[in-house]
C-alpha cells in the first residue's frame, strides 16, 4: 500500500498549481471566458505542452498514461482556479472514450491531433431530464443500406461550440450502444449555443435524419456500453475532485474575508459562531477529498467499480459541496451575493456540479442499493480484498 504520491502525481500537481497560479489569474480567466467558444487558444496550447491533453492516454498512444488519481489531482487544481476550458468534456470524456473504443485508423486520425491541441472532440451524451448517465438514450440510430440515420437531441453539451467533431451516443434498434463520430456541420445537425451556470460554453444539439456512414461508428455497439459507462463514471469522479478544489478555494476565500471584515469593532473571525462554521467547512473539504481519493484509488485498481465509486463520491461530495458553498456565501454577508467577489463564481461552479447527471439523492440511493445488493458494506472499503466472517 502506498499512501504517498508517486513522482508522476507530484509532478502533475506541482506543475498544474504552479501554472495556474502564474498564468491563470483573474484576468487570464476573464480572457478565457470571452475567448471564442470559451477556449483560449494559448491556454489550450499550454495544456498540450504540459502534457495534460494526453493525460489519460497511454504512453504507446503518445500520452502520459495517467489514471484516475492523476486526473483527480489535475482537476482539483482546475477547480481551485475555476478553469473554464472544457477539459472534462474534451479530454476525460472524448479522448478517453476514443482511446478505449476506436480502431487503429480512427485513433491515428484523431489522437495525435487531440493530444497536440490541434483538434478538439466532445462527447454528446446528456439529454433533457435524464435521470442518470447510464439510462437509455432517447437519441436513436436506424440502420439502413447506406449506414445509419440519427435522430434525437442532446442538451447542453459542454465544449461543443467550436469542437472539430462530436461523439454522439445513440441507441441502436438491436439494443446496442451506438457511438458515432460526427462533424458538427453535417446536414441535419443543429447546434444552438448556450452558456452554463459555471460560465462555460455549451450547445443544445438537434439531430434530424443525420446520415452517418459505417466508418463513423466507433467500437462495437454490442460491447460499447460498459466502456461508455466507465468513462462517464470516471469523469464524474474527476468532477468530484474539481468540486473539492472549488470548495477548498471557497474555504480559503471565506477564511481570508472573515479575518479582514470588521463588525462590532472586531474581525468577524473573532466570533465563535463564525469560527465553527469555517471549521465545518474545513471538515467537509477533508471529507470530500477522502471520498475522491477512495473513488479514484478503487477505480485505479478495478475500472469495473467506477460506477459504484462515482455514486459514492457524488453522494458525499454533493452533500459537502452544498454545505461549503452555502456557508461561503453566508459568511461573506451581502458581498457573498454580489458578482464582485470570486465567491459567487465558486458558488455557481458548485451548483453546476450538482445539476449534472442526476440528483445527489439518486447517487446516495444507487450506492445504498449497491451496498445492500452485494453485502460489501460489511467489509473494509480501503482494504477491499478483505472478506470477513
Amino acid at each position, binding site marked *: *500500500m*502506498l*499512501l*504517498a504520491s*508517486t513522482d508522476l*502525481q507530484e509532478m502533475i500537481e506541482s506543475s498544474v498549481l504552479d501554472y495556474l497560479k502564474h498564468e491563470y489569474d483573474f484576468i487570464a480567466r476573464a480572457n478565457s471566458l470571452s475567448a471564442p467558444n470559451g477556449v483560449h487558444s494559448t491556454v489550450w496550447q499550454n495544456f498540450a505542452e504540459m502534457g495534460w491533453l494526453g493525460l489519460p492516454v497511454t504512453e504507446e498512444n503518445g500520452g502520459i498514461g495517467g489514471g484516475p*488519481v492523476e486526473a483527480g489531482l489535475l482537476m482539483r487544481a482546475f477547480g481551485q482556479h475555476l478553469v473554464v476550458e472544457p477539459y472534462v468534456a474534451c479530454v476525460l470524456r472524448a479522448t478517453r472514450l476514443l482511446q478505449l473504443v476506436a480502431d487503429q485508423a480512427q485513433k491515428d486520425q484523431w489522437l495525435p491531433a487531440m493530444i497536440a491541441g490541434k483538434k478538439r472532440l466532445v462527447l454528446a451524451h446528456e439529454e433533457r431530464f435524464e435521470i442518470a448517465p447510464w439510462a437509455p438514450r432517447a437519441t436513436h440510430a436506424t440502420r439502413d443500406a447506406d449506414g445509419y440515420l440519427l435522430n434525437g437531441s442532446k442538451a447542453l453539451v459542454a465544449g461543443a461550440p467550436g469542437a472539430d467533431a462530436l461523439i454522439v451516443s445513440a441507441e441502436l434498434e438491436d439494443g446496442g450502444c451506438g457511438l458515432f463520430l460526427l462533424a458538427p456541420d453535417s446536414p441535419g445537425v443543429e447546434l444552438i449555443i448556450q452558456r452554463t451556470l459555471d460560465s462555460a460554453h455549451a450547445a443544445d444539439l438537434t439531430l434530424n435524419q443525420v446520415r452517418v456512414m459505417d466508418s463513423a461508428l466507433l467500437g462495437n455497439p454490442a460491447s460499447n456500453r460498459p466502456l461508455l459507462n466507465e468513462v462517464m463514471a470516471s469523469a464524474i469522479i474527476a468532477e468530484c475532485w474539481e468540486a473539492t478544489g472549488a470548495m477548498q478555494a471557497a*474555504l480559503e476565500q471565506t*477564511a481570508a474575508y*472573515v*479575518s479582514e471584515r470588521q463588525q462590532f469593532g472586531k474581525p468577524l*473571525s473573532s466570533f*465563535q459562531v463564525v*469560527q*465553527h462554521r*469555517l*471549521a*465545518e*467547512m*474545513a*471538515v467537509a473539504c*477533508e*471529507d*470530500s*477529498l*477522502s*471520498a475522491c*481519493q*477512495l473513488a479514484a*484509488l*478503487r477505480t485505479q*485498481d478495478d475500472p469495473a467499480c467506477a460506477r459504484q465509486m462515482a*455514486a*459514492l463520491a457524488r*453522494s*458525499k461530495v454533493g*452533500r459537502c459541496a452544498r454545505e461549503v458553498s452555502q456557508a461561503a456565501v453566508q459568511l461573506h454577508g451581502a458581498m457573498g451575493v454580489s458578482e464582485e467577489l470570486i465567491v459567487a463564481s465558486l458558488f455557481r461552479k458548485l451548483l453546476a456540479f450538482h445539476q449534472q447527471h442526476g440528483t445527489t*439523492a439518486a*447517487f*446516495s*440511493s*444507487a*450506492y*445504498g*442499493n*449497491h*451496498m*445492500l445488493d452485494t453485502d460489501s*458494506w*460489511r*467489509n*473494509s*472499503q*480501503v*482494504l*477491499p*480484498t*478483505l472478506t*470477513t*466472517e
Partner: protein
Amino acid sequence: MNLTLTTEEQAFREEVRGFLRDNLTEELRQGQRFTSGVYPEPETSGPWQRKLNEKGWLVPLWPRELGGTEWSAIQRFIFESECALAGAPLVHPMGVRLVSPVIIRFGTEEQKARYLPRILSGEDYWCQGFSEPGAGSDLASLKMRAIADGDDYILNGSKIWTTQAHHANMMFALVRTSTEGRRQEGISFLLIDMNTPGIEVRRIDTIGGDHDVNEVFFTDVRVPQSNRVGPENAGWECAKYLLEFERGAGIFSGRLRSQLKRIGEVIDQLAAEGQDIRRNPQLVGRFGELCADLDSFEMMELRIMGGLQPGQNPGPVSSILKLRNSRMKQAIAEFGAEILGHEGLRWRAGEIDTSSTMSVLIPDYLNSRAFTIFGGASEVQLGIIAKSVVGI
C-alpha cells in the same frame, strides 16, 4: 498512491487473521456484540487483553524494548481493522493506550517498573480522573486539591463522569497542587490506588440505562508523592500529551463498521419478517449516505494515520478525525434506532436481551450521544480546527 497490499502486508494480514481464528472465541465476540456502553465489561475485555499480551500485540505503540511491535502505520491499520471486523472486544484503553504513554514519557524508572508490567497483564484496571463537576470542557479550571504533607499529598474534592471507576483499582488524575499563577501551571498528574481510604465511588445512571460512569469523592485521601508523574505543577503537560493519544492514536473506522454490521443483523432479521429495508427508498438512500460517509471516513483515517512515522502524532488534524468519528458513531446508531421503529419502544434499562442484537440498538443510540461530548466536546474540536487547520 495505491491500495494494493504488498506481499509483506498481505502476509501480516493473514497472520492477524490466523490469530483471530485461533483466539477470538464466540463468547468474546458475543461480549462485544452486546456491549451498549462505551467499553465492554472487564469480563469481556480482560481475557482478550491477556490473549493479545501473550501474543505480544497488546501495545503496538510502545517502544520495542518495553513490548511494542514496531509495526508500520499500515500494519497497525490492518491489525485494528481486522480485529474490529472480526468482532473482537475493544481493549480497555485507560491503561494500555492512555496512561502508559505518559508513564513512559514522564515517569520515573520505579514507576515504569511497577506499572507497565501490571498494565500489560491487566492486573491494574485504570480509570481517568480528569473531569470535575465544575471542570468539563474547561479542564484547566479543575479544583480537586492535593496538599503536600510529608511524603504524601492529601486529596480533597471529587471527580465525575469517571468511566468504569467501579471496576478500577487505579486512577490517573489531575489535581490542583497550586493556586498561584496560570491555572494550567498549578496542576499535577497523580497515580492513585482506588483502595486508599477516603475514596468513595458513586454510580451515575446514564441516558442509555447502563452503569458506565461514576462520581468519585475524595476525603482526606493520602497519596504518596512518589506517585506523581513528572514534576509538581507540570501535570498539564502530561494531560496534553495524553489527550493527543486519546484523540489521535486510535483507529476507529473498523469499529464503526463493526457497529454497522451489528445493525446488519437486524436488517437481515427485519427482512426475514417481511420488513426488508431494501423496499423502503428513504432508508436505502439514507443507508447509501451512511456507507458513503463511513467509506470516506475510512479513507481519511487511512490517509492520516497510515501516513504517520513511528512515534508521530497526527497533530491538530486529529480533531477532524475525532469529530468525524463521533458523528459517524451517532449517525450509525441513529440509523439503527430508525429501522427498529415501533419495536424500539421496548425498554429494559441496563439489561440486554442477548437473544438478538435488536436489544442493543436503542441503548447504543442513547449512549452514542456521549461521543460528541467526551474527550473534548465537538464545540471544542471545532474551535481547534478553526484555529489550527483553517488558521483563523
